[in-house]
């Protein structure tokens, strides 16, 4: 079982990207060998109200059992808890927030409150460090990247908070992991899409130093070629059992690890 927690439907605002429809996503999943994908709405990240894009991921998931919805919650909007309640009601595996794109302080009170509320209802909160390499972004794409300090602030906000952080590189992960207590670090799951393979071998190093159980499969498709996440596992010295943990087992354990036990 290979589950991609980091897949997108929709269009990217700043350049042409092939794909983005449910049908093309399914075709890609078959090509790569991805069994299930957790879907976020790429278009909606840039909207004033990103929750207006949630209906798209709910609909896609309702029509295709290989999809799971990742709805957005904007903690700066009035009545944002309604979006969280709906996510619980519709059995979303997690919710996402992209604070710098929303114009919300990533480590401010609104995000910490959202994280705490997610913890209360037993849902992990997904956050992306970036969507593209900062060196190639559109001149009008100024939203800052998520910082390790912000992730540390959010994970410390409430002992029930659990985070799935995507698009993080080695340095980012190390700064959060070793800047957290073991109990805090255990409440974070990292996707592997932005971590370098050989010859620098950042992924191999992190599996040893941070712990294999802290990583899960993600691709960032269609903004990134999903072949990359498979390739870095293919080039890794890893047992089939441990590979299965990265591809889905760790995610399953993480979802079952709700520290609030209020599912």
């Amino acid at each position, binding site marked *: 079982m290979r589950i991609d927690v980091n897949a997108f439907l929709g269009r990217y605002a700043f*350049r*042409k*990207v*092939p*794909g983005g429809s449910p049908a093309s996503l399914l075709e890609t999943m078959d*090509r790569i060998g991805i069994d299930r994908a957790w879907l976020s709405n790429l278009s909606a990240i840039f909207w004033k109200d990103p929750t207006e894009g949630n209906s798209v991921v709910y609909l896609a998931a309702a029509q295709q059992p290989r999809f799971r919805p990742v709805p957005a919650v904007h903690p700066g909007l009035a009545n944002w808890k309604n979006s969280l309640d709906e996510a619980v009601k519709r059995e979303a595996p997690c919710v996402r927030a992209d604070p710098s794109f929303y114009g919300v302080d990533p480590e401010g009170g609104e995000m910490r409150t959202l994280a705490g509320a997610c913890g209360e209802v037993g849902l992990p909160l997904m956050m992306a460090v970036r969507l*593209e*390499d900062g*060196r*190639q972004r559109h001149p009008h794409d100024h939203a800052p990247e998520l910082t390790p300090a912000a992730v540390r602030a959010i994970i410390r906000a409430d002992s029930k908070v659990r985070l799935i952080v995507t698009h993080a590189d080695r340095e980012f992960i190390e700064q959060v992991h070793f800047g957290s207590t073991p109990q805090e670090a255990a409440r974070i799951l990292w996707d592997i899409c932005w971590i*370098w*393979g*050989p*010859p*620098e*071998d950042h992924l191999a190093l992190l599996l040893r130093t941070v712990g294999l159980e802290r990583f899960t499969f993600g691709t960032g*498709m*269609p*903004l*990134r*070629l999903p*072949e*990359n996440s*498979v*390739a*870095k596992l*293919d*080039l890794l010295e890893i047992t089939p059992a441990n590979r299965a943990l990265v591809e889905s087992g760790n995610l399953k354990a993480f979802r079952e690890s709700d520290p609030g036990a209020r599912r």
Partner: protein
Amino acid sequence: MTLVDVHAHFHYPGGSRADWAERNASRLAAGERIGITCHVASILGTWGRTSPTYFPSPDDVISGNDAMLALTRQHPGKIRSYACVNPNYTDHALEEISRGLAAGMIGIKLAASRRADHPLLDPICVAARQHGVPILQHIWQHRRKDWPGQEASDAVELCTLARRHPEVAFILAHIGGGGDWLHSLHAVRGVPNVYVDLSGSGVDGGMVETCLDAVGPGRMLWGADLTLDTGLAKLRYLTYLLSHEQIERIRWRNAAAIFPKDSFGAG
């Protein structure tokens, strides 16, 4: 099946990395898994230890090229090499090119020591033409101003140089290596002696398709640079997009056409 990585790097004890041996071993081991039959590689001076990586001193240029030649002797056929030179030291650069090519190097590597369209690069291009070897020019895609660490060089400047030297094959380094690759691909469309090297950590959706649209499979070269996993990903994606014959061009046939004859065996 032949697979040539036109943009590889190695390390050595004289460089800045304490883990140089591990990194070299990792590159070769991953290369075996991927099926790389030849790594065409360079060492940029001492990788910053005693002079800046992109502004290597003449002494460091020699040190790095010596280490590169030693690696090619240790791995005959599996590793081939570029002579890395700093064009600010014209006489030294030309001597180093002659020395390196005589010892078996098959190309010239330019870092970012001088703008790619500067006249100081002309003598190096003349040498490349005389010896029949390509020039791999380090490029940060769409870099119109100087940033610390390296002098600006992007595709517009490389194409200006390439137009001055139409008989020389230029390799625009790592289209996925950072910066606005779309800007580069607009620049190289009408410059037939500039080849696009696919290496770099970037695996952006749409990048490979845009390369194909801009220069076609006849001017694309496979490479990895610092991330072999992204190189493998792009190679696998190409097999989804292209015919066997087209992929063969990108895997090695285009390289075989611009490097000296028999650089990669019979294919």
